[in-house]
């Protein structure tokens, strides 16, 4: 694959803060932010551990961005948007301002919008359904637009009058990576100069929390551990994932378009690998994961030995962590530096791939690898786990994994830009 796509803008909301800058600072510090929450349903109360994003007021935050007046005016007028879409919209605007592309994308048919994830607004839909349970005929007609995952695509297209392709892409927890991969394809086909890859918040309702617990993937409440010590990817005491409220956006741009406007950007989106492993369920596959990594490395014109750092899928599920380590060793990634961004942010589910690509770019540019939180006793010592922050590094090539239920395996390679 040609190295013809760069990342020229980033935007993020995570439990570590609002905006990509606070995300970067807290990755450096190794900050985590997990807490217990109570959700009510039919007069009963249920407890979960989550990584909660800070209080977010769309209007206040969007005013802080350097947006053209007409865009800001339209943004402030938006109504009936779910929390999921508001988070995603903010991240998209932040990343476009960061890329210096707000005016350029307006009215352009060479700009596409790809959103990552399906069924990302469950909490909002559940609230509306509860409100109108006894008076269905009075449901707000906006519901018919709200419930589609493409609401965010329409919002961004209207705000910026973007006229290229637009849709959402769902691949369970691999959605973020898959949307990025699709963006690379759009630019490689030369139909688009810029692709806005936005991952709205996957906003769970109580039913998804409990579904994840019952399938054995999410860590149930544990009174013996403080919330910040509970999430332990690749540690002997790992016992499931903890959800984290994450949204993000990266702006992909053709290298040619970026060099014409003398924009350097954060890194190169090099190769990728995507394979299914013939399994509908939640069970991971060593063969499928290894194949995705091999494809990504091969398609980037590299060998395993060239990979400086692996941003693992690293969800903290016992079988998931074990399988990923086995797959990494199978590919020849012995002794590679690796960590789990989820150990700090929580698992953003459909947004995880985008957030982790942003984490990779931050680390690549700042020459550090953030600590893998709570990794005291690794399940395997053939990987160079980064237990405490490692600084002063020259990282040129990063591999980032995202695997989804239904046997969807994806890997990306990000490279440092040449000076």
């Amino acid at each position, binding site marked *: 694959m040609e190295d013809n796509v760069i990342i020229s803008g980033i935007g993020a909301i995570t439990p570590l803060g609002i905006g990509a800058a606070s995300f970067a600072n807290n990755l450096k510090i190794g900050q985590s932010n997990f807490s217990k929450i109570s959700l009510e349903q039919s007069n009963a109360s249920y407890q979960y551990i989550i990584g909660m994003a800070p209080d977010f007021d769309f209007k206040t935050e969007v005013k802080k961005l350097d947006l053209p007046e007409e865009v800001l005016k339209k943004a402030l007028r938006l109504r009936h948007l779910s929390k999921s879409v508001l988070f995603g919209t903010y991240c998209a605007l932040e990343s476009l301002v960061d890329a210096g592309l707000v005016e350029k994308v307006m009215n352009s048919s060479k700009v596409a919008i790809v959103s990552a994830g399906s069924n990302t607004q469950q909490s909002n839909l559940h609230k509306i359904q509860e409100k109108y349970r006894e*008076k269905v005929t*009075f449901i707000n*007609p*906006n519901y018919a637009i709200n419930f589609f995952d493409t609401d965010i695509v329409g919002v961004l297209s209207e705000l910026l009058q973007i006229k290229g392709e637009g849709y959402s892409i769902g691949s369970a927890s691999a959605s973020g990576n898959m949307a990025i991969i699709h963006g690379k394809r759009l630019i490689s086909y030369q139909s688009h100069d810029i692709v806005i890859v936005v991952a709205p918040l996957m906003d769970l309702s109580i039913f998804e929390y409990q579904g994840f617990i019952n399938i054995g993937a999410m860590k149930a409440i544990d009174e013996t551990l403080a919330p910040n010590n509970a999430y332990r990817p690749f540690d002997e005491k790992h016992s499931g994932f903890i959800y984290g409220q994450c949204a993000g956006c990266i702006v992909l741009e053709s290298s040619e378009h970026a060099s014409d406007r003398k924009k350097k950007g954060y890194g190169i989106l090099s190769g990728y690998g995507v394979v299914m492993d013939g399994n509908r369920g939640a069970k991971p596959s060593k063969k499928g994961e290894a194949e995705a990594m091999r494809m990504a490395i091969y398609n980037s014109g590299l060998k395993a030995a060239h990979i400086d750092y692996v941003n693992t899928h690293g969800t903290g599920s016992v079988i998931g962590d074990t399988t990923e380590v086995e797959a990494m060793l199978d590919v020849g990634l012995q002794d590679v530096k690796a960590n789990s961004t989820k150990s700090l942010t929580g698992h953003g589910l459909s947004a995880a791939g985008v957030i982790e690509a942003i984490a990779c770019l931050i680390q690549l540019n700042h020459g550090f690898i953030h600590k893998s939180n709570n990794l005291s006793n690794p399940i395997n010592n053939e990987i160079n786990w980064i237990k405490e922050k490692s600084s002063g590094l020259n990282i040129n090539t990063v591999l980032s994994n995202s695997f989804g239920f239904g046997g969807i395996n994806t890997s990306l390679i990000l490279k440092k830009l040449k000076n």
Partner: protein
Amino acid sequence: MEKVIAIIKENLLDIIPELADEEFSNDDSFVDLGANSLDRGELITLTLEHINLDIPRIELAKAQTINELAELISLKKMNN
């Protein structure tokens, strides 16, 4: 009828807050007031919910102004 007009106006201001700073007549068309078809659908649904009148929306499709809508709704309310 006056009460229905007041409810419609209150809902319209929720949907298009900018109208609060403008002078407009109850005979201006919804289009001229800046309401698109979705805004209009929301206005009708909110108003019907407010007065608890459940009638098919198609029966109100012809109303183009606040006065027309209020008149139709008042009529349906009497017959309901």
